[in-house]
């Protein structure tokens, strides 16, 4: 196998397992879905976030020499599945990716929650020759909850990694489909906290790719819990004289949900593995294999979110749409996540355009690389 010899598989796996276990335990204990629904405390997630900081999950993707936990991209992204399992409503994915982005440009670990952008195909951020930052991000997840934002900006023909204070931005507050912060952010010639040239491996759409990858994993995690909840419910709920699970039409709907969960988990895991391995081999975000993997994960999990949420709600009946029930926390987030960092239509067009570089037969050569 084409493992990086500098990072022996066993050590990596131990580290992966450690951080994944720690994350799952923390989320289970502090961010239980039912607690999240029943709690009317606006600070409910403050405890979760302190737990995250306490064990260093937020700094997972930052190397140790830059002040992070040095868990690497694979394990850092891997724990987002556990975060998706409980529909975690804190900017963990964003902070992890921001930390990684900054570290790639040699910028050390920042404290607190970080936003991560640009987050849409129409966002545009530039650094002028005086090093001042201008630009707009239409929908920046958790912007108002974060102190700072890590950005990819264009300076002439070069890409820069930039850290900016959110308080220097003009914020237009708005909420996502899942009632979470999704604010408009505008910078007008502000002075960033720090800026450094981006590594050669980066492309203009690197933040969109990484953000999309994170959302795919979160969606897969949320779908996993939707399947668990729905399976448990149909096995205990009686209707028309028997339990719901005895009806063939219910069985088939659930089988279909299991299919969507499976394909989502599979494609997201594949993309994480591809990104981690291929970047480790010195490839960049313009690499067709990396792009195919991430875009596919984004596109496929987005349709899985749609199908999965529909089936889970239908089988839960009216109960599933009540505020007290946990299902909506998962379904609304999975559906909202489809739109962050480029939606599946935009990415499909990107992928289609990429495939135009080769003919029909080149398609198979690309697909069969791994």
């Amino acid at each position: 196998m084409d493992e990086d010899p500098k990072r022996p598989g066993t050590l990596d796996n131990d580290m992966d397992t450690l951080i994944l276990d720690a994350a799952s335990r923390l989320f289970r204990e502090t961010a239980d879905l039912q607690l999240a629904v029943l709690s009317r405390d606006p600070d409910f997630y403050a405890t979760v976030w302190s737990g995250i900081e306490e064990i260093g999950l937020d700094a997972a993707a930052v190397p140790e020499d830059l002040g992070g936990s040095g868990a690497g991209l694979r394990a850092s992204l891997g724990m987002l599945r556990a975060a998706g399992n409980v529909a975690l409503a804190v900017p963990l994915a964003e902070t992890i990716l921001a930390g990684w982005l900054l570290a790639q440009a040699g910028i050390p670990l920042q404290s607190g929650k970080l936003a991560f952008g640009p987050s849409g195909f129409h966002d545009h951020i530039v650094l002028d020759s005086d090093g001042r930052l201008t630009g707009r991000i239409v929908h920046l997840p958790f912007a108002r909850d974060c102190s700072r934002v890590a950005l990819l900006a264009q300076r002439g023909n070069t890409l820069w990694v930039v850290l900016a204070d959110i308080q220097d931005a003009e914020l237009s507050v708005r909420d996502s489909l899942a009632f979470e912060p999704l604010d408009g952010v505008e910078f007008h010639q502000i002075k960033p906290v720090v800026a450094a040239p981006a590594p050669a491996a980066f492309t203009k759409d690197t933040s969109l790719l990484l953000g999309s990858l994170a959302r795919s994993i979160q969606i897969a995690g949320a779908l996993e819990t939707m399947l668990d909840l729905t399976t448990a419910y149909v096995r205990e709920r009686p209707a028309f004289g028997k339990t719901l699970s005895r009806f063939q039409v219910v069985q088939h709907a659930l089988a279909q949900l299991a299919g969507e969960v499976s394909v989502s988990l599979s494609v997201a895991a594949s993309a994480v593995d591809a990104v981690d391995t291929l970047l480790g081999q010195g490839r960049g975000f313009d690499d067709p294999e990396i792009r195919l993997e991430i875009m596919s994960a984004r596109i496929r999990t987005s349709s899985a979110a749609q199908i999965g949420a529909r089936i889970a709600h239908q089988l839960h009946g009216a109960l599933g749409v009540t505020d007290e029930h946990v299902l909506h926390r998962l379904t609304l987030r999975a559906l909202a996540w489809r739109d962050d960092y480029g939606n599946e239509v935009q990415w499909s067009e990107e992928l289609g355009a990429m495939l135009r570089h080769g003919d029909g037969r080149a398609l198979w050569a690309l697909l069969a690389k791994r």
Partner: protein
Amino acid sequence: MTTTLEFQPIRLPPAVQALRGEVRAFLHEEMSAGTFDPDFPTEDWDVCRKFARKVAARGWIGMCWPKAYGGQERSFLERYVVNEEMQAHHAPNTFYFTADRQSGPTLIKYASERIKAEVLPKIIAGEASFCIGMSEPDSGSDLFAAKCKAVRTDGGWKIQGTKIWTTNAHRADYMIGLFRTSPSLPENHRHGLTSFLVDMRASGIQCNPIRQMSGIHDFNEVVFDEVFVPEDQLIGEVDGAWKQATTELAYERSGPERFLETLTVLRALIDLDRAEPVPQVSESVGRLVAELHSLRRMSVSVAGMLEAGREPAVEAAIVKDLGTAWEQDLPQRVRLAVARASQGSAAYRRFEDILQYCTRIAPKLTVQGGANEVLRGIIARGLGLR
């Protein structure tokens, strides 16, 4: 989590990918020589037979089987990539495919020594073709209802009855069939079915052709009239064939043949989009390729589980359910993607021929090898619903 669905992101090892390169080079040679056209799969039996010999000469039939019977004991992943390249290029592998995928492995596990020694080397040499006798006129996917009988006689068994939808029965050398040897039991409706190896040249067998809507003839009705089968052609346990059949199914269900049958039309769509890029067409290409990639990675992951000696029955059923539904929808989705095209060019006419072919074969894709309704039942059982 109560439900454990885990798909490891398997990376095919370099040696396996090197083998892929060899297979691809071989296929390109054959395509250049005009042996087959990847856009229009051929059913010409002569072509298929000659192709089987060439593939055999490369050592790519029965490659995972024991050396004692002429196999090479190569890994399941190696067979996987060979098969994948054949399917992706629509190579004429019909002659040997059934034997390589399931009949051979069944014989290895359950057949008598005489049969193994006699038949397996012939399969490996590309000289023995197999068909599968499962469905019957009154029972398709419902195999427990099979009525075609095998009755004990001197030195063996006599078969009486009819099988139907038997692919390639009219030209195969052997059939592995499921026959009723006892009535099913009230407490076990799976009881009473037995597998036999039938020599298709035995007297008393009549194959009546059934043409398909696609214009293809590979289906048959097979009528058995007192067909004698020697005792040592019994496969496995009398009355206990059902259990044998299900353990083989993971191999049959998760392979690339479960989502690549209509791939030609996606290649053709990309070629059209290259000639005259249209954003909506590119979007369709991207979406379809993302779905195909997702299916393939899941299938590769299941191949990794099989290689590791696991029996991923539910995972395999999921691959086949999603894969066949996808390859079935593909022609229609491609048709919609190009619906606004001008349709006058020569390139479009070729595309149209491919689209027609794929649309004609689409309906059978979610039926063959176990209807998707059956697969969903298996998945539901895996989830603990039944």
